[in-house]
Structure formats: C-alpha cells, structure tokens
C-alpha cells in the first residue's frame, strides 16, 4: 500500500485520542477511590492502575488478535495470526482505518480493552482478594471482552454483519461491564455491614477530580472513534459534551427532588451516565438528539442505581450496574431511535427516521451482550472461587484491603 495513504491529521488525532483514553483508567481509579471508605482507597486505585499495565501486555500478546484479526468463521472470534502483533505494523489496514497506521488503530483499541474491566471493579470494591481480581481480569478480557469486540467491531463479526450501530462501545464496553458487575456483585456477596453501617464516600473532591478527567478523556473515546480528524469527529465531540452536561443537570435535579439537596456527587455521577449513554450514539445522532439522550440518562441511571441497591439489595458497591449497564442499554436503544444517515452516511436511520428495524437490531445486540457477559462472568467467578477463593477473610475486610492486601495505607494523618 502506498505511503501517501496515511493521513498525518488522522494519525495525530487517533494517537492523541489513544492518550486521552489512556488517562481515563487512572481517572476511574480516582473516581472509584474517592467513593470507597478510606481504608480501601489504595486497593481501589490499584485495580485500575494494575489493569492498565496488565491488559496493555495481554492485548499486544493475544487480545488484539482475538478481537480484530480475520474471522475464524461464523463471526464469533478472530484468529491467532496477529499474536504478538505479528503483521500489525506501520501500514494501514483498510478494513478498520484506511488512513492511519495499523499500530495507531491497535493502541487506540487497546485503551478500550483496558478501561472496560476496570469499570467492573467498582462492583466488587472493598472485599475481593487481589490475586482473584488479577485472575478474573485476565480471563474476563480474554473470554468476554475480546470476543464481544470481535462481534461488534471485528471484520466478519456477527453483530457488525447484522447491522448493529455502536460508535464507541455502548455494548462492548458499557453493557458488558454493567452486566458483569451485576453478576460479580451477586456471586461475591455483600460487604460486611451493607445496609446497616454507613459506607459513605471518603473523599468527594477525589470523586469530582476523577469525573472531570473521565469527561476530558471521553472526548478521545468518542470523537477518536471517528478514526479521522474531520467533521464526524467534531460531531461526536459536541454530542459527547452536550449529553454529559445534560445528564449531569438532570441527575442533579432528580436527586434534588428526591433527597432535597443539589448533590455534587449527583452532578458528577450524572455527567458520567451521560457520557456512557452517548457513547454508542456519538457519531450517528444530531446534537439535539444528544440532549434527549443525556436527559434520559440522568433519569434512568438515577433510578437504575436506586433499584439495584434498594429494591434488589445487590451490593454493587460503586453503582456500576446502574450507570454503565442501564446507561449503556439506554444509549444502545437510543441509537436505534435517533440515528440518521444525515449525520453519518456509514450508519443507518433509526426509528424516528422511518427505520424501526434498527431499534430491533439494537435491542438484540444489547440483550445478547447482557446475556453473554453475565453468563461468562458467572462461570469465571465460580471457577476462581473454586481454585483460589474470591473474597478476603472477614477480619481483613474489617481492617481494610489497603493494609491487608497491599501493606500500605493512604493517609498518614
């Protein structure tokens, strides 16, 4: 392929976007770290930090090959021909991004593979053994994330062939992590004292800092998914900011009505919910539609969080199910409602533009993602529990995971 095919602008934007998405994982560590009690802040941040390193190597060695190398048949999984990035070099791969080096596309995708298992860690915070977490992450990335990424984004992937629209990972990233978080929280069981003792966030300033960095990084996540530095990236960028803002305003308003206070935690969590919901739609919908998507996210995610914890009694410690599972599902369905080829000719029209079939396609993709991620997570969790055990002993849970799992404490006050 001639060298002139590579676009300097597109490559610069995609590499910058990869760096922005990289920042999201430690940002998530701070977001989650502020939400836990102070005896567990380091162990919570460690989850995200460790995953950044672990999946960076896993993806190079075999993850990228399973997700994106040529299909092995039936659209289920890629092969092993790209193990160790064999054949993934400085020339573009037109199947994925025709104007950037294949390595640039790979590193961008790697950052998605990194943050997805990190999202799940919020559900099992404050009680999971570190080595169980390590093994879970490696198995989950290999047997859940990589196949799902292949289904939706890989050449020959069956959901991609079916016509699913997922601009930046509503199904692959958010529904998969939300469904897995639900199963993980149920299998692991509640924290000691859940529902009786106060488990308030120990540092809301850290939460807001984490949310701010997530918002910043999300511009790379969504606008980078245009894979070019032109109009579509700008569209996704504006949609992303608009939905985050609207969802933050909406969640805070609902929270104000229910709890009688305009909560900073609500405003921050709402913005994250909006970012989640706009993710699959960012490059397929108009800006006014992104306002509606943000509005919906603020409402459904707020009540999603309440239902999971208060009605169902599931100790999803940091609300991964309500924000990512519910928000991702709303975003996937909203894409089937609001998508229009006027925004992206490579997409499709949604329900509002005369194509109800697209909404059905989106619902199937969302449902399949929930079921696959949930079932596989159950199998992986049970297997790890049988071999090395999932949960720290009760006395260590009381002392906190920072000291008992890592031998460190966060604050010398």
């Amino acid at each position, binding site marked *: 392929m001639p060298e002139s095919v590579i676009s300097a602008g597109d490559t610069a934007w995609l590499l910058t976007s990869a760096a922005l998405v990289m920042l999201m994982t430690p940002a998530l560590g701070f977001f989650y770290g502020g939400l836990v*009690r102070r*005896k567990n802040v380091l162990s919570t941040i460690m989850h995200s930090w460790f995953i950044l390193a672990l999946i960076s190597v896993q993806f190079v*060695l075999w993850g990228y090959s399973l997700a994106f190398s040529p299909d092995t048949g039936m659209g289920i999984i890629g092969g092993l021909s790209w193990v*160790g990035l064999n054949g993934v070099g400085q020339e573009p791969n037109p199947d994925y991004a025709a104007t950037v080096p294949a390595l640039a596309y790979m590193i961008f995708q790697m950052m998605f593979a990194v943050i997805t298992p990190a999202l799940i860690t919020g559900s099992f915070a404050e009680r999971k*053994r570190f080595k169980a977490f390590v093994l879970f992450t490696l198995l989950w990335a290999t047997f859940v994330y990589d196949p799902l990424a292949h289904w939706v984004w890989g050449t020959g992937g069956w959901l991609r062939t079916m016509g699913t629209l997922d601009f930046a990972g509503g199904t692959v990233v958010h529904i998969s992590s939300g469904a897995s978080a639900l199963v993980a929280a149920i299998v692991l069981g509640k924290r000691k004292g859940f529902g009786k003792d106060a488990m308030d966030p120990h540092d809301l300033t850290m939460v807001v800092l984490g949310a701010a960095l997530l918002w910043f990084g999300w511009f790379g996540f969504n606008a980078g998914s245009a894979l070019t530095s032109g109009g579509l990236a700008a569209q996704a960028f504006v949609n992303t900011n608009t939905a985050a803002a609207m969802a933050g305003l909406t969640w805070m308003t609902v929270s104000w009505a229910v709890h009688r206070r305009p909560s900073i935690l609500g405003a921050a969590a709402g913005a994250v919910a909006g970012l989640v919901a706009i993710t699959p739609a960012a490059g397929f919908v108009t800006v006014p539609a992104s306002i509606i998507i943000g509005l919906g996210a603020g409402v459904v995610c707020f009540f999603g969080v309440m239902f999971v914890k208060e009605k169902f009694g599931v100790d999803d410690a940091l609300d991964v199910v309500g924000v990512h599972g519910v928000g991702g599902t709303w975003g996937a369905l909203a894409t089937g409602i609001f998508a229009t080829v006027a925004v992206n000719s490579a997409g499709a029209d949604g329900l509002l533009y005369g194509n109800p079939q697209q909404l059905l396609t989106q619902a199937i993709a969302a449902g399949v993602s929930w079921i696959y991620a949930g079932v596989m997570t159950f199998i992986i969790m049970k297997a790890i529990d049988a071999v090395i055990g999932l949960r720290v002993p009760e006395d260590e849970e009381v002392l*906190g995971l920072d*000291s008992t799992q890592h*031998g460190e404490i966060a604050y*010398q006050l």
Partner: protein
Amino acid sequence: MDAALTLVSMISFFVLVATWIAAPLRAAEPSLAHEAAQPIAA
C-alpha cells in the same frame, strides 16, 4: 526471529501471572500497626 521473540515474551508474561497466583495471601504485617492506630470504620 519474530516468532521466537513472541514466544519468549509470552512465556515471560505467564511467569509473572503464575508468580502472582502463587504469591502469599497476606501483605506485610507492619502495616497493620499503622492501621490499628487509625479509626478503621471512617
């Protein structure tokens, strides 16, 4: 040569993973003294 390097890097990675799985359960005990000096439920 590339295949050999990939094989060696793969083995190196799995040696690390095996080390983590086989590592002792408890972290260093002295940290518990620090923790005991603080109210743990905060």
